[in-house]
């Protein structure tokens, strides 16, 4: 949804600012304002994938002041002669959540076309792999004709393309961000010869991007977030796709997923409810085996029973004593079950926990069925994962 012109209304501006300040401290805006260059930050989780931050340098390059573009989708820079294939390349990179560089014809506020090197990169939450924002750096490409530049080597700091999807994009009604930077807006002038970015332009783009990451990191630590330019491995385990994380994130029960194919069967996902139940933080347990929950009172026979069932790929429900981080024991109704992906083979095990010492209200369902609801929801989420870990794609 684009505002018609001029600054967005106050409430909207507050929401756009909150997109950053909710994740990073308030000083992040000042820090970003200090950085040279023309760049934007966009929030894919907000309707229309709007620009939530625009740098001071934007005006001199494009004629737009930051308040002219806040809340609008970045396609506003494109125009009639912008190459659609280039735009499609950007759109695809946004959908696949990978970095991308392309020389593209943009239009200034006064309608004049100009060539820029556009560098788009996702900003990942370091631990759960969510994409928090996209950054888009624009570096002007000079007019002089030059030799064909060396093929652009994708900067190694950014992850290879993973075919993940944002959940919101699939809702039939949502006019959301899959169309992130796309859409030709009919605005007049023709382009000249297509231009090629020089190595110097690319370095400049990269360096600006890195400065942005540094700024975000410096200020994210204050609110407990850590961000990075690639999907980070926690303790050496491959992170789950961010869309899988998103769908798992909707499941309210207390559970973890473990991966038996990795050494010592580590936890690869933990729900928020699990963290509340046990008192651990995500960083502390991702990559660890579930035995961190066990303690002196935990029955070894029950643990052996669980292991036996895991080995034969069967589900089981057991009662055992487990321990929170603070050492407090709780009676745990634990259901463990193998979970298969689209290939039909077991990809993970799900462990759903329930503290039996607390009175729960499951709206009439028995505790067992309530737990099994989590298992079912996990099955559905993982079933659309192909063997390579990427999602099933309907075309190509």
């Amino acid at each position: 949804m684009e505002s018609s012109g001029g600054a967005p209304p106050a409430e909207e501006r507050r929401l756009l600012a909150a997109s950053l300040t909710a994740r990073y401290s308030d000083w992040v805006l000042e820090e970003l304002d200090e950085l040279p260059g023309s760049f934007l930050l966009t929030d894919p989780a907000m309707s229309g994938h709007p620009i939530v931050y625009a740098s001071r340098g934007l005006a001199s390059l494009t004629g737009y002041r930051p308040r002219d573009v806040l809340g609008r989708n970045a396609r506003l820079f494109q125009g009639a002669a912008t190459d659609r294939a280039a735009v499609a390349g950007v759109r695809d990179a946004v959908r696949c959540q990978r970095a991308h560089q392309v020389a593209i014809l943009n239009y200034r506020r006064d309608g004049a076309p100009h060539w820029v090197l556009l560098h788009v990169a996702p900003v990942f939450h370091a631990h759960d792999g969510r994409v928090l924002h996209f950054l888009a750096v624009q570096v002007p490409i000079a007019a002089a004709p030059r030799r064909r530049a060396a093929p652009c080597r994708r900067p190694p700091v950014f992850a290879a393309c993973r075919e993940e999807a944002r959940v919101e994009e699939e809702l039939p009604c949502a006019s959301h961000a899959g169309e992130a930077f796309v859409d030709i807006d009919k605005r007049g002038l023709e382009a000249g010869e297509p231009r090629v970015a020089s190595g110097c332009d690319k370095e400049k783009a990269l360096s600006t991007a890195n400065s942005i990451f540094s700024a975000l990191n410096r200020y994210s630590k204050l609110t407990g977030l850590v961000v990075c330019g690639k999907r980070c491995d926690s303790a050496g385990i491959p992170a789950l796709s961010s869309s899988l994380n998103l769908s798992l994130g909707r499941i309210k029960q207390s559970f973890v997923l473990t991966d038996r194919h990795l050494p010592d069967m580590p936890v690869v996902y933990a729900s928020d409810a699990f963290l509340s139940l046990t008192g651990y933080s995500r960083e502390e347990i991702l990559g660890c085996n579930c035995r961190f929950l066990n303690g002196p009172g935990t029955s070894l026979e029950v643990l052996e029973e669980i292991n036996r069932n895991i080995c034969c790929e069967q589900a089981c429900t057991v009662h055992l004593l487990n321990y929170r981080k603070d050492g407090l024991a709780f009676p745990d109704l634990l259901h463990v079950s193998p979970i298969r992906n689209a290939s039909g083979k077991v990809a993970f095990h799900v462990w759903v926990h329930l503290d039996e010492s607390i009175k729960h209200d499951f709206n009439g369902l028995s505790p067992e069925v309530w737990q099994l609801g989590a298992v079912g929801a996990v099955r559905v989420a993982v079933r659309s994962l192909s063997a390579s870990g990427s999602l099933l794609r309907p075309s190509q």
Partner: protein
Amino acid sequence: MEVKLTIKRVPTVLSNYQEEGGGAGCGRNCLGDCCLPASKLPLYAFKASNQNKFAQEDGLPTDFFLNSLLLGQWEDRMAQGLFRYDVTACETKVIPGELGFVAQLNEGRHLKKRPTEFRVDRVLQPFHSAKFNFTKVGQEEVLFRFENGGGDSSYFLANVPNTESSHPPSVVAINVSPIEYGHVLLIPRVLDRLPQRIDPESFLLALHMAAEAASPYFRLGYNSLGAFATINHLHFQAYYLSVPFPVEKAPTKKIPLAKCELKSGVKVSKLMNFPVRGLVFERGNTLKDLGDVVTNACIWLQDNNVPFNVLISDSGQKIFIFPQCYAEKQALGEVSQDLLDTQVNPAVWEISGHIVLKRRADFEEASEASAWRLLAEVSLSEERFEEVKACIFQGTGLTESDEEDETNEESPYASSSSAPVASSHIPEGCLVLQ
């Protein structure tokens, strides 16, 4: 001389009680008059009005119906070993191509082909108690009753005696041969022993179920007799598949209606660029308005002996009707052997684009072209479809207007005009890009 047409096919087993001797009478805790009224089942009573789709303040969480109740109960039955196989162990993939057909390999046990229990050339056939019907199903296969609570909020009761109800019980049961995880059967007014035919009240029940699930990935389907319904006892099917169906992505072309008929608010379109010709019904001022228009169309088809399938998608906001002719062609020997060898019976799920294949070679080689070829055999010809469409319009009192057609080229997934379902409460799993 009337020739009775039948075909031989491997029957789909919907219930563990289907292939028994079939003798009724009990002690088995079934769904018949002998057992059901005397027993208790969980009851989900849905809200009567669908105006407020979002968070109910004191009511159930919006994902309760689908995530907690249906999937939880389904998983419970899996743990009890009631299903004939683990469907999640069946390899599945999306076939590359424009439409993205979904293929699944389910080699299953080799079952013998038997003649179908009823003739395939009559859409309406009387109920036969001797044949298998859902009153013979054991209650362990039933997940819960699903009925109209009559109020503003939905509620759930874990254990309700079946005698105490203002409605004849309608139940949701498992399909023991599931196509996907969560595959269930909705059986309206099970004790009334209704044959497989659409009526307004039952269809509305199905729409309400789609609305309660509130997920675009949970669809309901109906097969008439002659269009691969397995059992002549009124039932709908439903399951959860977290990718768009090909038919949901196909473009549609609106059929302009004369102004006076627009008071129901229902929009009718023709399905375009899809191997099976069909009509699409959307919007409607209320769920009932939409349901009534569709029901009228189905009743015309039933009464005029045209087999058809119905897909309820988009949480009950979008309904497809596919008239078809495959079974008759098959009985008359008009279908090529290689298509028959795939053993695919093109019922509503196959037509929508979800195809279960029984041979690995078919699965490996599955292509959009081969899927299209199979489904094209199912469709009525353009001529016949237009005839049927005209008759449906006439029979249901709709009039096509003379205005210029508005072509709606966008696929439904690109259009932003559907009801604004809040993303935060959609309980589905990973979704896929086009």
